[in-house]
């Protein structure tokens, strides 16, 4: 069966559909914003009010808050599709499953990206972070990191949306895979916000990009198999 529209056009439609659903309720974004706000607050309570420590570890807290929020947000991303078997409908439309993957990845990534932009001023307030060193690169790191979380996350959330104990399943599968991404994103953020005497930030950015590309392509190849079984 040949799809009537191109893959990119279909992916764009899926992305627009996700944005529309999100925009009409704004429930998911609001929920994850407040969830990560309280996570960031909890980190500062757990570490004590010492500003130097907090500032030094701020990139780690920021990415952990994003990572925890991403589990909630990714889980929701396919839950809306399994209601009324919407995903089956999409596959039958016929939208190529790969287009669903691309649309969903960027839907999830954009949500996380917006969340990270919202959290930035909060890190300034809570951890006294200096954002003015290289804001453009910071935005790039946040974007690459959001895509990196979403690429394997979309595949895993499609899997776990229909598994038993799905709320445990998603982080159990996702966190080990995301470990290098967390390392790269935290280091890249750290060397963007703080002095980088050894000029390491570029190699971390490359690692982030490589991670994104690898998981985008692996997910692109494997997602149709997952969608078949949904």
């Amino acid at each position, binding site marked *: 069966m040949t799809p009537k529209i191109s893959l990119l056009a279909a992916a764009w439609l899926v992305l627009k559909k996700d944005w529309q659903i999100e925009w009409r309720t704004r429930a998911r974004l609001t929920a994850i914003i407040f969830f990560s706000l309280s996570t960031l607050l909890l980190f500062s309570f757990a570490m004590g009010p010492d500003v130097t420590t907090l500032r030094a570890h701020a990139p780690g807290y920021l990415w952990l808050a994003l990572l925890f929020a991403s589990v909630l947000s990714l889980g929701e991303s396919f839950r809306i599709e399994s209601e009324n078997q919407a995903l089956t409908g999409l596959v039958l439309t016929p939208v190529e499953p790969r287009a669903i993957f691309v649309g969903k990845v960027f839907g999830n990534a954009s949500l996380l990206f917006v969340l990270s932009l919202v959290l930035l001023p909060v890190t300034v307030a809570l951890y006294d972070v200096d954002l003015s060193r290289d804001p453009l690169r910071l935005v790039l790191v946040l974007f690459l990191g959001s895509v990196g979380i979403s690429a394997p996350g979309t595949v895993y959330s499609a899997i776990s949306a229909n598994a038993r104990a799905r709320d445990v399943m998603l982080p159990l599968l996702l966190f080990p895979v995301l470990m290098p991404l967390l390392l790269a994103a935290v280091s890249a953020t750290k060397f963007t916000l703080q002095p980088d005497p050894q000029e390491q930030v570029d190699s971390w950015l490359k690692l982030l990009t490589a991670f994104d590309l690898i*998981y985008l392509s692996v997910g692109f190849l494997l997602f149709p198999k997952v969608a078949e079984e949904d």
Partner: protein
Amino acid sequence: MPPFVPLTLLALVVAAIIAHVASPKVRPWLWKPVAALGAVMLVALWYLGLVWAPPEQFMSDVGRILYVHVPHVWMALIAFTLNVGCAVAYLMKKSWVTDALAESAAEVGVYFGAVGVSMGSIWARPTWGVWWDWDPRLISTTVMLLAYVGYLALRSFTEDPERRATWSAVAAILSYVALPIVWFSVRWWNSLHQVQSSPSTVDKPMVQVLRWGAVTMLCFLYVFVVKRYEIARPRQTAAIELPPLGLPRPEAA
């Protein structure tokens, strides 16, 4: 033992696993001589590792754990590679055999990996003075272990056998792809922290014993995988033949 022996044996083991799966004729007997060989070699390994091999120059007798620790981690790597091979094979051509083999390889790999990492930790305490260190090999093995525990959990949480097979195959590939990235990222990350390096002045008799250990564990790897496969197959058949309950698949509640 010449250096090519373990590699040749590895190829032999993979061939033997395939023979075990493919041919009902070798299934009842082939594992028995291998298990016996493994048992005999294990007893010899105790002697070779504890008495025959000279004590390590820096670590003295503590270093002897190497002869079982390193082969365990190697076996875990082999088992996970076997698992991902089966996963790719399953996605290319659906077959219950590769699915069952993937399950058994993953479980055996988690066993070998968990024992290997624990032994590494026991070794690290007197050698490095810590139970845990941010060494790339250590982290990669642990991350791999966690990923495969997730894989096994996914398998046990999915009832539908066809879904289970496809999903776990996809999860296995995603986890396996992460391994080299984890390795590189931890190595770069670690260049910031000054880490004690393990003194690796490996003497010739030690290499011999290490190879002996690897061959011993390879025998056990084979026996474990095929025995676990024999458990997985009937379970799978029972799940496939289970009459449908007449209920729709559990979608969102």
